[in-house]
């Protein structure tokens, strides 16, 4: 796998967006769990 080349920037941006969405979902999941416990 050759990681040099023009696609590296696109891959990094894609990974950042995906990680951002993922962390937001993880936080939401935790919040929902807390709210379920409270109610």
């Amino acid at each position, binding site marked *: *796998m050759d990681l040099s080349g023009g*696609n590296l920037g*696109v*891959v990094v941006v894609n990974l950042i967006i995906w990680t951002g969405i993922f962390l937001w*979902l*993880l936080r939401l*999941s935790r919040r929902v769990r807390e709210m379920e416990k409270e109610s």
Partner: protein
Amino acid sequence: MKTISAWLLWLWVSLVIVGAFYYAPLAEGFQGGSSRILFFHVPMAWASFAGFIAAAVWSVRYLMTRDLRHDRSAYVAVQLGLVFGVLATITGAIWARIEWGAYWNWDPRQTSILISLLFYGAYLALRGAVEDPEKRARLSAAYAILGLVVTPFLYWIMPRLTFSLHPEPVVNAEGKPKMQSEILQVLMASGIGFTALFFWLHNLQTRIQALAERKSAAREQGYGS
């Protein structure tokens, strides 16, 4: 979803992203790297289709049991089906701009997904128009079951009835995918990732919906007393 499973999903999708650019070769006959959108566009369309079919299945279960939890699951499946359907339409339009020169061409594939989105948009409108939860669940279940006929027709049959510029679907008329094995591997991995993401989102949204319903019921009780 347990935190460890969630992190496994993160790793899986991350590997799909890397694989789409560094493992799978470019498909022949496409301009530049436009074929790479396939790894995201096709699984999004698949997740949308799965959402609409799952909604019909949950609707059948609701009619059999009259358990409003199934109605809630069907509702959320339609919501997610619409989200993934819109994303598939957008990614398809971007691809069409590169390959066909215009974002929208009224190609049978584009037309059928648009009709499908309108059909399920009407499902949401129907739900919004009925206040009584039992009546709303019954009517929307019947509508979603109708989707069991409409969705396969729009996704699989209609685009094959007329000439289309759209590339051959993954499972074509001969029932065999015609693509290099590396492309197929990344595509399948992406399909699995998107399906898992769909069910995670479904689980979350169903629970949020349940919390909202409980809260609004408590508020109504408060007003009543």
